[in-house]
């Protein structure tokens, strides 16, 4: 009797534990969905996008990750474009300039967050697009074989946004009025109106994507290491033995970047030799200098930084030969790009493609310091002379043509036992010999701190920080235990601007566009209609209106409609 009761207690506890563990893993997971203005582009054109980050438990926009990644890769899985975006309240929108140099072909666009690296890559959102090089006259590339879409019904009792146009056929350069309605709750959607391409595309809608999300325990591959990037980009790396590639646990890795202020942050490697650092907006677009602190002379360690865009899974699309129809469409698209470039007509305006971000500088010191400007004194040929003549608290000694430095401790007026921390142009350099050749002609400012300094849990016995006149740090060669990498900029892009053809200065120029409208942030109300308007161009074609988004209740909504643009002047003449 007692055994049976004990058994029930343990069984009950096990069930409660299992259920609650599932909830925890679900509560810390998210997925992305990338919406693009269309599916076929010409090199040199702009891709307008909206990236959603969705919490898979609530199915609402996730507020966790603030950094997202968009990777373009070709049919051989080679990355061709890497874009990092800032996410605010689960959404990011902007534009990406496609390089002119991309070869014609099919491309995969993969979107994910750093936090999603804890799960299998197969859960990353993917889109397939076609990019044509406008200088490619043959266009003999292959397309993805188009599958027939399944008619599987959505699990969501979705309400579909009703798209109403004031007409079904429009003339060129005519105003189009569109009204969206029919939702049960408020929603935020992106609307794209673009020429119907002659190339079939199987990209999933937001409804299909969210519908297909499942959380299985087996999917979680590295739950602990990849933290959500809720305060900015997290850079990850490893310290290892250069030759044997044996991991180095518990090493201290320092990071600084060129600046007028000495700056430093650090991380310690874990038992697997891995480390991670938060590189916020302050580091955006800057050179990052990593150094292993206090590497033993007998050792030969190196730092390896993880590529945040690296995908291990290969993309192997089933390809079929290009069709005549698609070639005709791509030639037309190429011509339109050529004409618009000639007349300098485009739809993007206003915002810079790179955000001017100001982040928090992790300053090494924030206190009064002894500052020396060598230009105020007689010119001295190198740092050795400067130290002797102008820096009474710095002692240099030379052994076998190798210099070493000590700072005199101001508290007890005797030299420290260890070498001071040396900073050049804000960057930690672990060797005085790297600055010894710099004289008054190249040094702008020298700051000396003659006390035992602390930064977090790292202590330096004095600090010497020099600022050069022409950023000498960028010309210096990193030491063997150092690594210099360029941090990417956050992509922001420009807004899509609707052009009124009647407001053009020269109304006689051809006005041809394939994307008539793009709005990544349209609010749909549950109570009334949401109206907007735009103009058709001289491009006569069938156009698709695509609306995709998510309601306040976390229900994905997706809808599309079509209309036609014809040239009434020509048709009347005919």
């Amino acid at each position, binding site marked *: 009797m007692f055994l049976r009761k004990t058994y029930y207690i343990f069984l009950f506890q096990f069930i*409660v534990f299992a259920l609650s*563990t599932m909830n925890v893993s679900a509560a810390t997971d998210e997925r992305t969905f990338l919406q693009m203005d269309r599916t076929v582009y010409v090199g040199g054109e702009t891709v307008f996008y909206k990236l959603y980050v969705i919490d898979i438990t609530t199915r609402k926009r996730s507020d966790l990750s603030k950094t997202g990644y968009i990777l373009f890769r070709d049919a051989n899985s080679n990355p061709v474009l890497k874009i990092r975006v800032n996410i605010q309240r689960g959404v990011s929108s902007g534009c990406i300039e496609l390089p002119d140099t991309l070869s014609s072909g099919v491309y995969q666009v993969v979107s994910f967050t750093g936090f999603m690296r804890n799960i299998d890559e197969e859960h990353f959102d993917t889109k397939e697009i076609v990019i044509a090089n406008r200088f490619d006259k043959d266009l003999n590339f292959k397309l993805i074989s188009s599958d027939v879409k399944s008619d599987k019904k959505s699990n969501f009792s979705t309400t579909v946004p009703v798209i109403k146009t004031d007409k079904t056929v429009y003339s060129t350069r005519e105003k189009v009025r569109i009204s969206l309605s029919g939702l049960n709750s408020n929603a935020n959607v992106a609307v794209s109106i673009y020429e119907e391409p002659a190339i079939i595309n199987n990209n999933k809608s937001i409804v299909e994507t969210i519908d297909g999300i499942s959380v299985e325990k087996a999917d979680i591959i590295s739950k602990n290491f990849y*933290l959500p990037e809720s305060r900015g980009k997290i850079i990850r790396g490893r310290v290892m033995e250069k030759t044997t590639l044996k991991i180095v646990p518990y090493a201290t890795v320092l990071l600084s970047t060129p600046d007028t202020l000495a700056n430093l942050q650090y991380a310690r490697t874990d038992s697997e030799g891995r480390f991670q650092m938060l590189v916020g907006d302050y580091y955006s677009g800057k050179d990052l200098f990593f150094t292993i602190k206090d590497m033993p002379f007998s050792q030969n360690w190196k730092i390896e930084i993880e590529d945040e865009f690296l995908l291990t899974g290969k993309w192997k699309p089933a390809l079929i030969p290009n069709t005549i129809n698609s070639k005709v469409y791509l030639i037309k698209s190429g011509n339109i790009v050529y004409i618009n470039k000639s007349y300098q007509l485009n739809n993007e305006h206003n915002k810079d493609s790179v955000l001017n971000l100001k982040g928090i500088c992790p300053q090494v010191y*924030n*206190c009064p310091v002894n500052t020396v400007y060598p230009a105020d004194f007689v010119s001295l040929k190198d740092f050795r002379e400067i130290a002797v003549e102008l820096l009474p608290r710095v002692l240099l000694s030379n052994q076998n043509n190798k210099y070493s430095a000590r700072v005199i401790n101001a*508290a007890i007026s005797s030299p420290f036992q260890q070498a001071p921390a040396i900073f050049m142009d804000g960057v930690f350099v672990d060797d005085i010999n790297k600055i010894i050749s710099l004289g008054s002609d190249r040094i702008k400012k020298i700051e000396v701190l003659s006390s035992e*300094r*602390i930064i977090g849990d790292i202590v330096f016995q004095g600090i010497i920080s020099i600022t050069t006149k022409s950023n000498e740090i960028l010309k210096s060669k990193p030491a063997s235990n150092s690594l210099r990498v360029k941090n990417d900029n956050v992509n922001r892009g420009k807004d899509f601007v609707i052009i009124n053809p009647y407001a053009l200065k020269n109304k006689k120029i051809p006005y041809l566009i394939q994307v008539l409208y793009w709005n990544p942030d349209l609010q749909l109300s549950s109570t009334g209609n949401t109206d907007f308007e735009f103009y058709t161009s001289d491009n006569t074609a069938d156009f698709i209106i695509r609306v995709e988004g998510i309601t306040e209740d976390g229900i994905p909504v997706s809808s599309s409609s079509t209309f036609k643009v014809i040239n009434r002047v020509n048709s009347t003449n005919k």
Partner: protein
Amino acid sequence: MKKFLFILILLVSSMLNAQTNSMNEIIDSNKTDTVFHANLTGEAFIEYRGFKGDQYYFNDWVKSDILLSTGEKLYDIKLKYNGLLDEVIWLNTVIPGLFKIDKASINDFWLKPAFDNDIHFKRIKVNESPNSHQADIFAQVAVEGKISLYIHRKINILEVQTITLDGKLYPYKIIGPTPNYYIKMSSNKYFLMTSLNRNSLLKLFPEQKKLIAKILNTHHLNLKIESDLIKLIGLLNNADFQEK
């Protein structure tokens, strides 16, 4: 009784499970903040002990929070406020050692004694005397509003005595609190009160003498008592008190 005990065990076990998991969720979502926190910067501090009297606001290490000038916040670090030097001293338990935190890097700090309310200090820029230049000081926040009251918990050398030890004479400094009171008006102007009395306050606001006197009489406040000055500033915030 047995049934009751059985149900009780089930309930307690499920509640414990639920608690553990909700804790996990909190740790997960805040893990980024706990892993990537800001670093304090400062210099090694050697305490001078040749004083008679307390040089710290609390003599014991107190768990404290710091708001840095970068806007980042650090929690539960062991601090002491040294009123003699007007500096914040940090006990680093990892290295270990005492460090004087760079003053300019601190905006606010909160000493959180286990037995009392949190004490909030703020770095303010004031003239410590009418003829001095503006300087950064740490002052205790007593009242914040249209009119604010900050108390600079200054410790000064009150007297120097000499003692004989092994036949030698040694100077011996007696230190004690000499607080300064800074009243900040809505125009960001600070008024300094070096001593607590009715006259020194009324001298600062001659045009508001009547109003201040009325409040002091109505509420039976004695301006020789610090807590009554704090009450008065609180009441002035509610009254129609204007700087002239």
